[in-house]
């Protein structure tokens, strides 16, 4: 069901854990399935993400996308991190089954939530970042039979 990359990131998730006194922490829940992801960011004075860790209560895809997302944002600037969309995460994982596309949104939203927390703590405004929703759910329609 899952690609080899997904299985690899599931079996050996990168950057699991917490960051003490993180620059930003974001927790998001997925209304569609009830799963939850938390992202910790350590951002230096130049606005570069030095470290990133996550915790996830979710399916295999949720764990793998969290892991991949942390890899993708590490070492990036805030602006670059904003470009790590769910599509980018999915591509990096060689794709997800259709029913699991929503899981990758969790990762994107968690990054945004952590950045929002950082911005609030530091009283700055990040271009292109809007207040994250507590619960994400997307408009993908199930066929009605």
């Amino acid at each position: 069901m899952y690609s080899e990359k997904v299985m690899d990131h599931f079996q050996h998730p990168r950057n699991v854990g917490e960051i003490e006194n993180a620059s930003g922490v974001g927790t998001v829940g997925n209304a569609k399935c009830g799963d939850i992801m938390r992202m910790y960011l350590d951002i230096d004075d130049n606005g570069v993400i030095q470290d990133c860790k996550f915790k996830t209560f979710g399916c295999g895809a949720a764990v793998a996308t969290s892991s991949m997302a942390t890899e993708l944002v590490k070492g990036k600037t805030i602006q670059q991190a904003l470009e790590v969309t769910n599509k980018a995460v999915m591509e990096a994982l060689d794709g997800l089954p259709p029913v699991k596309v929503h899981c990758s949104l969790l990762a994107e939203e968690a990054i945004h939530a952590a950045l929002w927390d950082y911005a609030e703590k530091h009283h700055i405004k990040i271009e292109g970042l809007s207040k994250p929703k507590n619960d994400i759910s997307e408009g993908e329609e199930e066929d009605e039979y």
Partner: protein
Amino acid sequence: MKKIIYLDNAATTKTAPEVVDAMLPYFTEFYGNASTIYDLGNHSKNAMNEARDIIADALGARGEEIYFTAGGSESDNWALKATAEAYKSKGNHIITSKIEHHAILHTCEWLEKQGFEVTYVDVDENGVIKLNELKKAIRPTTILISVMFANNEIGTIQPIKEIGEIAKEHGILFHTDAVQAFGQVPINVDECHIDMLSASGHKLNGPKGIGFLYIRKGVKIRSFVHGGAQERKRRAGTENIPGIVGLGVATKRAIASMQERTAKEIELRDYLIDRVLKEIPYTRLNGHRTNRLPNNANFSFQFIEGESMLIMLDMDGICGSSGSACTSGSLDPSHVLLAIGLPHEIAHGSLRLTLSEEITKEDIDFVIEKLKSIIERLRSMSPLYEDFVRKSKGGEK
């Protein structure tokens, strides 16, 4: 190949080798259509009626009351839709439970769209139907009560005899989905006042794609699959003779070995339940502690999500399930676990392990060890667990 410990026997079972052996001649040698006049067709007809009698015997019924179908889902659809059609002049109300299989629930929803009214009776925290609510739900227009014999997720066995008596007292038809119970627990349709009963071959080491509906003689019921005159004109379609023969042999086998097999399964199941509850914290058992299917254990592990757990178990060669396999297309937590009162996030972390006669104590020991480390690992990754630990620590200060 890695050793596999298959603990998903409620989803489907291995077809027993003697069942396959019995089926084989009916593919390539006695392949005649049972509805024909020549000798080759008679072979098929005789084999089919032998299977019918074996099944009838197992239920205390008569051969002519057994109608073969393609499986449990078709039997459930048939029982409900065709009874509704046949008895709609008498009334339009049906009673069922909140924890039925989707083959019943979605059929009920469909019937509601056709103008029928359905009451979904509650269950208690062990998954046992509330009999007083069931009684209160009865109306003069009630034509059918359908309550499953045993639940496929949490294994709870329902008070079928009591329900049958209530139905009988009120002159209401009683159907039971016995897909999980047939071959696992003794069933007598007369003692329990069962008018219709669904079962499916692949749950008792028989083949997939075959099942039956028991219909008590005298019950008016229409066809569900219309067409040829097979199954006494009640179920059309060329008879699946190999499947029917396989189901017959599987039934014979399940009934003959039931006592010994389930005694062993109950012992192992209880060993599994006791150790897991003792050795893994923040864990609960779902379903009734004793009144449950011999091979069923169902746990909820707090702070943990089911799919991740299943994938990790699979890596260790352990096949289990989270919620019902048939509903894995859905992301919603199991309606059964919600009905017994679990909150969403706990329902998410459920694990169903269903044993077979092949499972040993060593297997169970292996599973428990693996499970312990998987749960620990997943909890260490879980933001919910983090919050919980933080809060407890906060409380200790």
